């Protein structure tokens, strides 16, 4: 209790001091696209209208509260009806509303116009990461949270040092050229997510089995950060979006480089992997795709996500586990949170992560699962 009373003024003072400096703490982010600017201006306009109404309405109420009270000897009048007044305060707000609706209508119509895009990027929501496909360029990658877990988890209350972009940083950002119309197509793999970048003025739900689209044109080079905006399960707060807008020449260079790494990523199918090589590779794949549910300890979350350490599937036959990871788990005819990773990962990645799980925690099978083993079971 005491510490609360001490903290409160301290926090309030800190806030006042910070508030003067950092407008990004209490208003819409600085707009970086035409639509975002229109939204910003609309919001400002409506705020001023509201402030005006507020002053008039609560000015009248405050006046009445101060002047028309029994304690100052005011006697109650008994009027209780006036049709003219009723008509006035029905019509006047209506007219004000029309004034607001007109600019909003124009913005809605331009927001919905996704034609004539220069670049089309498909954003796919997964629990809990984003997948991106540049449809014309043929570039694909996943984008996951880059903030390390030890910055986030502070259950021993010792406090952790957090980076500037805590929770809004990713390993692979979306790179786009400035000044070009970028069409974002959204969909999802499991549940509904929403792709939201405030500075660019777009938020679009990503719905499993359906395709939606939206667009933006980034005015200036910069890094724009957003987050998933639709509750999508336990790590909803941990799947950010980062868009890097660069000059068109830099963008072209980035595309060329990405294509090269995509080619390089196709590993020699004949390579003979050792157990340690596969485990090391598998650990990385696990950290990107599996750890959210099955946890770093391999113990999962009781009641929700099964443990891998000591699991019947992982300590059972290789074929059984490959089948589970490739095709996912289907219960009562419906896919579960254990999705078919065959669609997301390469044979090598799958072989590596399966080898890793069979030789980690309590699991000590010594098995090596090769990319060829996985390939053989792909249907």
């Amino acid at each position: 209790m005491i510490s609360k009373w001490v903290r409160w003024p301290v926090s309030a003072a800190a806030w006042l001091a910070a508030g003067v400096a950092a407008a990004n703490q209490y208003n819409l982010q600085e707009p970086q696209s035409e639509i975002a600017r229109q939204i910003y201006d609309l919001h400002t306009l409506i705020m001023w209208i509201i402030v005006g109404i507020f002053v008039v309405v609560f000015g009248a109420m405050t006046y009445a509260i101060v002047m028309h009270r029994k304690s100052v000897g005011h006697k109650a009048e008994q009027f209780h009806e006036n049709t003219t007044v009723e008509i006035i305060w029905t019509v006047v707000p209506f007219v004000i509303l029309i004034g607001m609706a007109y600019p909003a209508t124009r913005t809605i119509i331009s927001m919905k116009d996704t034609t004539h895009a220069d670049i089309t990027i498909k954003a796919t929501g997964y629990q809990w990461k984003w997948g991106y496909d540049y449809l014309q360029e043929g570039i694909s990658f996943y984008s996951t949270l880059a903030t390390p877990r030890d910055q986030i988890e502070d259950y021993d209350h010792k406090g952790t040092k957090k980076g500037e972009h805590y929770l809004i940083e990713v390993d692979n950002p979306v790179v786009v050229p400035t000044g070009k119309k970028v069409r974002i197509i959204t969909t999802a793999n499991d549940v509904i997510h929403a792709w939201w970048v405030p500075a660019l003025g777009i938020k679009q739900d990503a719905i499993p089995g359906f395709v939606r689209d939206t667009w933006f044109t980034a005015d200036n080079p910069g890094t724009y950060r957003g987050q998933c905006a639709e509750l999508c399960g336990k790590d909803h707060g941990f799947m950010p979006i980062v868009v890097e807008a660069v000059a068109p020449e830099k963008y072209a260079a980035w595309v060329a480089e990405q294509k090269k790494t995509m080619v390089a990523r196709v590993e020699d199918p004949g390579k003979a992997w050792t157990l340690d090589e596969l485990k090391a590779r598998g650990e990385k794949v696990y950290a990107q795709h599996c750890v959210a549910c099955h946890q770093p300890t391999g113990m999962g979350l009781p009641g929700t996500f099964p443990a891998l350490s000591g699991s019947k599937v992982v300590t059972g036959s290789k074929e059984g586990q490959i089948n589970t990871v490739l095709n996912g788990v289907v219960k009562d005819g419906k896919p579960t949170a254990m999705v078919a990773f065959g669609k997301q990962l390469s044979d090598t990645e799958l072989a590596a992560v399966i080898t890793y799980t069979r030789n980690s925690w309590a699991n000590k099978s010594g098995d090596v699962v090769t990319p060829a083993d996985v390939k053989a079971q792909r249907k």
Partner: protein
Amino acid sequence: MEAAHGHHAPGHDSAHGHGHDAHGHHPTGIMRWITTTNHKDIGTLYLLFSLTMFFVGGMLAMGIRLELMQPGLQFWKPEFFNELTTMHGLIMVFGAIMPAFVGFANWQVPMMIGAPDMAFARMNNWSFWLLPPAATLLVVSFFVPGGATAAGWTLYAPLSTQMGPGMDLAIFALHIMGASSIMGSINIVTTILNMRAPGMTLMKMPLFVWTWLITAYLLIAVMPVLAGAVTMVLTDRHFGTHFFNAAGGGDPVMFQHIFWFFGHPEVYIMILPGFGIVSQIVPTFARKPLFGYSSMVYATASIAILSFVVWAHHMFTVGMPAAAQLFFMYMTMLIAVPTGVKVFNWIATMWKGSMTFETPMLFACGFIFVFSMGGFTGLVLAITPVDIQLQDTYYVVAHFHYVLVAGSLFALFGGVYYWIPKWTGHMYNETVGKWHFWLSMIFFNVTFFPMHFTGLAGLPRRVPDYNMQFADFNMISSLGAFGFGLSQLLLVYVVVTCIKGGEKATDKVWEGAEGLEWTLPSPPPYHSFETPPAVR
């Protein structure tokens, strides 16, 4: 019969024990409450149930604010945090706010229209006693494998089809509570339409009765829609249907359409009776008749009708055609007109009155002030392009807490202070009541006003952790929330002391009070009006 009730022994307490023995066969003790068919007993049960659930839901809110006090995860795993937000919403909406208003209807409607009791006395008993099992299901769901449902109170599919058995318990709880609401509503509609005292035409009814009549119709219309939505989730989960599974030909967005077709009228279900309470309190303490009675009735009806054509403003980001976005934007903006009319009429009622500010009036004025703030942000959110920035952010959390806490809850508090002298026969402690108002009002704003800022700056809702830029405002919100939670203990103190004893209340209680309930003794007889009163 009236004569038999004429001599009320001082201290007789119909809300408390030893039922009036005019009929000589009331069970006593716990069986009295289980078997009661009396509108006042049932009203009391509803209100006490609601108060209990208010504290259960409040504890969950404290858990949410505890985690959000600082960046980083200090207390809860993210999945448990989601359970807290989900169950806080479900318990407050279905366990606290809605039953509280039904409790008010039970106590007040018969007294205000000059009826002896509710129309269907046994169904009234049943509609209350369905609630405790439903609440038990909700609370127990925390302890089943996988915990309570963590899909948000909106239960969006397909996230809700992923949940563990806690989701099934929540679905059954909603079914039961829905059945209870429908029965309660049928009872209220029938009572109002059939049991008014001679001479009380519809347009002479007190506004609280009017707002409940309209609310009851809304409930009857939309509770089955919710039941349908959650039943479809249930069959998707267990019986191989694919209503919301695109892979099986279903549509996840359909759930949202169905849910919000229930959900938006539900919002007005939780506020219209509050409008009614405020419309009773303001004239009493302004000592002046309600301004624009008939326009208030029409405004209430307009809001109710419009509530059926605005549901998709909750889903502007799902990707609707421009024409649909425009339609729902215009309709939503239109709601500001009748809502504005109500606010203007309340202020005109105050205008040139002779006002005093006892606790009910403080809560009514507080209601008008903060509810209007929620109305303003509602207008901001109605503008589709702005909504697209603010959808699913803390701005929305601020908005609906302004209309639900500062709106519905403050109206309920005002109503409690206004009528509790009538219900118990004792005056409440005015000093404690005023403290309750001012602490609630200040801490409410400390808690929720900063959320407008975090929402604008880009903090999504339903996240257990956030970037450092939101840290200061979240700290302020959390401290405010703890203060708000603690302040509510004053309400319990007031209610308990009032039931136990205190200064004897007069029949009229308030100098400016008008209406049939004030012609009855305080506390009123077991059956309100056994011979119909004369209405001018």
